């Protein structure tokens, strides 16, 4: 009896132990299981036909990519797996996925700094059909003649304005022409906040879900103007020529906001969205990707104005337009998978189904010849600025030395807003932090 019990127990234990282990040696057949993996298995493909595994960066477009992948599989029989990394975890997900035997064949980097980590994994796209579809070489991530990445979406950000509220306060969008006019309007709204029932700016939350709007996107403006003044495209040591302007716009944001500057440290991205959508604030700094969050206000009440910081000649400044989404193809993937991936990319940017999905469902502006106009009204506004002869602000933040640098600036901004730190700390995080991080990158 004892013996039987012992054997039984041991067997149970074995079943338990081995029940858990197969996760470690990755099974070579199945693509990584994930909630976003399409459930329907593609039809059994003929031999030597490749497959595509796309590690998507944008959680807000996950559904659309899944649908597009399914459409491609239905049309061609080539299996396409789309997995989307959870917000803010792309780099960690990519690092672990790339180490697997079924690694992503199509992934993305955010620009030259992000490329530094993945250069050894990028297939040279210079001869590919999809590279030929680019409208301009500016949208390729190149070094010499090697094309490491291709921008697939062009995005724009600025200050989203609720024009209905602005009108209630007695102004219109055209009144805002530069920093001085933005400041006087914002301060006037703050002065009459009690009567009007709303504030000028939605909360500039410094929670990680929102701080990138300021430590990265807003910080782009002083960098852009400095690069422009010095006629450079990146630098080992930033001088901080326009940091007083950065301070001015930051002061404006935090002192004319829905909440006290002290509370910003804990405010999230959702807080800002809900304030804006609930008509508690006129302005909300964000980009074209935020359209779905704010469309409840109605297209006719939405407008996007440039982020003026008081730099000379800013009357001609347009919105901030650029890309930090570059497609890269894994060069370590099997030959047939690389080919399948290139075919898929080309199909996405040229076919009727693909271009329609990009423009309508995802609302993307794509730098490809066959791209359709985007259905996103903010995109239309961005084109109007360009048509009116305004100069777009480039996305220089892809040259920021590291995440660490952004975190340092964000931390200092938060402390300054709360009054626990001085502006000097922002300046040193910005200027000295840049040089320090730049050197550490080359350690």
């Amino acid at each position: 009896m004892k013996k039987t019990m012992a054997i039984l127990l041991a067997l149970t234990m074995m079943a338990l132990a081995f029940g858990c282990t197969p996760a470690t040696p990755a099974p070579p057949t199945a693509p990584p299981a994930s909630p976003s993996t399409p459930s329907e298995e593609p039809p059994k493909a003929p031999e030597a036909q490749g497959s595509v595994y796309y590690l998507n960066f944008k959680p807000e477009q996950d559904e659309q990519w899944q649908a597009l992948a399914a459409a491609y599989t239905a049309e061609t029989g080539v299996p396409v797996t789309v997995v989307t990394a959870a917000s803010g975890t792309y780099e960690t997900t990519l690092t672990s996925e790339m180490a697997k035997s079924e690694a992503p064949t199509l992934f993305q980097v955010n620009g030259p700094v992000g490329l530094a980590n993945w250069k050894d994994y990028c297939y040279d796209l210079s001869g590919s059909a999809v590279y030929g579809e680019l409208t301009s070489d500016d949208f390729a991530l190149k070094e010499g003649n090697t094309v490491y990445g291709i921008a697939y979406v062009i995005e724009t950000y600025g200050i989203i304005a609720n024009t209905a509220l602005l009108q209630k306060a007695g102004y219109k969008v055209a009144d805002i022409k530069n920093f001085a006019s933005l400041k006087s309007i914002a301060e006037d709204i703050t002065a009459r906040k009690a009567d009007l029932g709303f504030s000028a700016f939605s909360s500039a939350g410094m929670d990680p879900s929102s701080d990138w709007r300021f430590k990265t996107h807003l910080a782009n403006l002083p960098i852009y103007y400095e690069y422009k003044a010095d006629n450079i495209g990146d630098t080992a040591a930033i001088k901080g020529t326009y940091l007083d302007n950065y301070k001015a716009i930051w002061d404006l944001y935090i002192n004319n906001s829905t909440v006290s500057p002290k509370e910003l440290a804990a405010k999230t991205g959702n807080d800002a969205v809900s304030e804006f959508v609930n008509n508690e604030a006129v302005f909300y700094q964000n980009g074209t990707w935020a359209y779905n969050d704010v469309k409840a206000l109605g297209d006719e009440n939405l407008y996007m104005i440039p982020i003026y910081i008081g730099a000379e000649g800013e009357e001609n400044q347009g919105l901030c337009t650029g890309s930090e989404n570059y497609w890269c193809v894994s060069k370590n993937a099997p030959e047939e998978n690389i080919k399948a991936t290139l075919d898929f990319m080309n199909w996405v940017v040229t076919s009727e189904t693909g271009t329609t999905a990009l423009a309508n469902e995802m609302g993307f502006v794509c730098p490809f010849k066959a791209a359709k106009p985007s259905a996103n009204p903010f995109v239309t506004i961005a084109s109007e600025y360009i048509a009116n002869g305004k100069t777009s602000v480039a996305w220089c933040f892809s040259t920021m030395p590291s995440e660490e640098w952004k975190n340092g600036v964000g931390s200092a901004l938060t402390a300054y807003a709360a009054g626990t730190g001085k502006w000097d700390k922002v300046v040193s995080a910005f200027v000295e932090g840049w040089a320090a991080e730049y050197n550490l990158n080359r350690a």
Partner: protein
Amino acid sequence: MEKATKKYWPLFVLPTLGAFIIGFVIPFAEGIWLSFCKFTTVNNAQWVGFGNYSKIWLDNTFTQAFAFTALFTVVTTILINVLAFAVALLLTRGIRGTNMFRTVFFMPNLIGGIVLGYIWQTLLNSLLMLLEKPLLTLDARYGFWGLVVLMCWQQIGYMMIIYVAGLQNVPLELLEASHIDGATPAQTLFKIKIPMVMPSITICTFLTLTNSFKLFDQNLSLTGGEPAHASEMLALNIYNSFYARAGAQWKGIGQAKAMVFFLLVVIIALIQLRLTRAKEVQQ
């Protein structure tokens, strides 16, 4: 029985050993190897020798993280154990509802660290806002005490259960004898109960010490190391070396930090085990 053990030992040992090798020994060995390499993904590493180890202190954050971690470990180890023991004493006196109290105190331990971190962040921030003090991510002192509160809340119940078991094993004859000899409650506590539960104290201090030293989830979600790394603990520091810096060399440096971190934990845990073991008495 002994014969059966002799015959069937592989059946009992091998499955666990297999799991241990696959889940621990192999990754650990790979980790040691990777700390001498430059790599982006683990299967594409390039040997660089001791270079990574010499660069550990390059970014000036490791020492600060170590100091913060050490202080945190000392404070939480003492607080958790003293409080858990006190609660265990209370709950072994046969108060009404003892079982319910034990269950309720144990429950926080069932919630994951990340979730707890966010819950406590909201709670503590609301409190700080009411008191008009800077929020958690603005002042490392609040971050520190926030983490202490969180860890205590989470761990006291668990340690309490171990202490309760220990206290229930103190022989009644001993307690009775001391009572007859006229020992005061304090004397009973310090001369009988504490020496008798020394094995539990060894386990609990070991667990709290290593848990605090290795703390990651709660640190990540409660303060995220803010402001400017001031509340960053070693594990988070290693994570940030891995992912927040650009350039492939930082993965190797992070891995080297992890090795140093491992050695620190081992040394500290061994010293602690030796110290508390020495005080254990035979029943």
